[in-house]
């Protein structure tokens, strides 16, 4: 059997020179515009201003920076948990047989996904800002006299990011639930399990790979999120990405920005590599 499989895989392959010719532009582009610059940025963090680990010592000893990193982890974790709680039922609804509900759910999940994060962050400002829709409505209704302070808080960042990242939680779970054979819940019911038991003992365990992939994706994306914290957050909700940008553009301390980038990169890439088996990015891009 193995012979046949390998033989089939070899048949009709392109020759090595042709293959290299076809892949060369792709590799060259990514190497020069992507990996080389990032490599250089990370390198400056240990070579400048002097070849030492000073930048990292600074990052890990200043309470301000430690607080930013801790806050980033907390917000990313909060986003993941809330996206999971909100996303699982929606994924379950989307994976159901039938026409109306699954279609409606899919539209409500995909339309925000295709809308840029910038536009969605802007919409949140319009909703919860001092003169935003919610405050105006409450004042018009006479329920409050002074506008509520909702924007530029951690809560605003959390809500905005959860909203933007929610589709990335729903889609992997949906994909896992959809690949669940419809016969399994039926078999469980036939064997006497009620709906709750069927869910807890059959559906939930089998959808865990999707849950795991969704959580990982949301957590990793949340760690490095820039736009939403920059627009919805205030000075008290500084996150890693915003700190990097501040160090680079305001303090003009590129080596230190490089050091923070290295830490962020280690976290996101490390998590992704460690759990790459569960993370099927192609499923998220090529959602059906």
């Amino acid at each position, binding site marked *: 059997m193995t012979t046949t499989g390998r033989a089939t895989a070899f*048949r*009709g392959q*392109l*020759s*090595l020179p*042709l*293959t290299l010719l*076809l*892949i060369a532009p*792709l*590799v060259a*582009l990514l190497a020069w*515009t*992507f*990996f080389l*610059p*990032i490599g*250089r*940025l990370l390198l*400056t963090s240990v070579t400048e201003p002097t070849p030492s680990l000073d930048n990292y010592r600074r990052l890990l000893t200043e309470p301000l920076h430690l607080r930013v990193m801790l806050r980033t982890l907390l917000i990313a974790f909060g986003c993941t948990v809330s996206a999971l709680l*909100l996303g699982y*039922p*929606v994924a379950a*609804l989307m994976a159901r047989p039938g026409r109306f*509900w699954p279609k*409606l759910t899919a539209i*409500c*999940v995909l*339309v*925000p996904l*295709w809308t*840029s*994060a*910038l*536009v969605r962050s*802007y*919409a949140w*400002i*319009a*909703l919860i800002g001092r003169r*935003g*829709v919610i405050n105006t*409505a409450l004042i018009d209704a006479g329920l409050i006299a002074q506008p509520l302070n909702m924007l530029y808080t951690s809560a605003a960042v959390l809500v905005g990011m959860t*909203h933007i990242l*929610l589709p990335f939680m729903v889609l992997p779970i949906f994909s896992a639930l959809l690949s669940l054979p419809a016969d399994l819940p039926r078999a469980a019911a036939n064997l006497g399990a009620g709906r709750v038991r069927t869910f807890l003992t059959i559906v939930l365990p089998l959808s865990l790979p999707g849950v795991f992939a969704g959580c990982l994706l949301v957590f990793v994306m949340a*760690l*490095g999120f*820039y736009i939403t914290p920059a*627009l919805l957050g205030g000075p008290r909700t500084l996150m890693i*990405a915003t700190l990097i*940008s501040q160090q680079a553009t305001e303090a003009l301390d*590129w080596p230190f*920005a490089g050091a923070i*980038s290295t830490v962020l990169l280690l976290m*996101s*890439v490390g998590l992704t590599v460690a759990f*790459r088996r569960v993370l099927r*990015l192609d499923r998220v*891009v*090529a959602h059906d």
Partner: protein
Amino acid sequence: MTSRSIGEWAFRAACLLVLVFLMLPTLIIAPMSLSPDNYLHFPPPGLSLRWYRAFLFAPDWIDATLFSLQVAALTMVASVLIGTAGSVALVRGRLPGRQAIEALLLAPLIIPPIIVAIAVYLQFAPLGLTGTITGFVLIHTALAVPYVVLVVSAALQRLPPSLELAGLNLGASRLTCFRRIVLPLIAPAVLAGAVFAFLASFDETVVSFFISGTEHKTVTRKMFEDIEFNLSPVIAAASTLFVVATIALMVVANASRMASKPQKN
């Protein structure tokens, strides 16, 4: 009412709330863009195209939009050419280290954009590439090409290799096989990849923010600045136009991808 149907209705109600949460911001910008007022009331006191007019007659908005469209179009062409060639090599080629290349291809999707933005700025600035169309197209292509490769190589993998073998056997050259057999069959995926690449470039905010110049800035940079400094309903008008255009493009891409799939049921 049985307990089962109460549970079912509770479940649906909860889902409905989440769906409203998901759609709310997207749905709110359209009425806002039609508001005659400077501030955002809901429901709007009346309807007006004032902000659309303001958008269309503001040279800075139009310049930024045209620049973004130009970058996105060039990015799309470059990503499709480079990405399709790369997919063919990855799926049909004799490639040492294929898995490493596949893993590296995903990096632009995982590495936080802020890191890319700063790194690319440092690389481009000394070369005078910041604020130039070449610079934008280079980095946007690097960021968009993984989408093309994911979609096109999935389509290539679905294509039985025996079709190309049959083409060769019947006397066609490699190139003819690709042109007459492979390309027509993966065309929908290539089109979908093109749409993804176009949108990835047009929507790209963080890197564009950092490498924009005073002369050439993308519409996302313009929007970002305006949201920070001068929150006006023109942004809502622009956003609404972009959302509608995006949804239309995605519907085309998805319909085309669906058409390419073998009928399952």
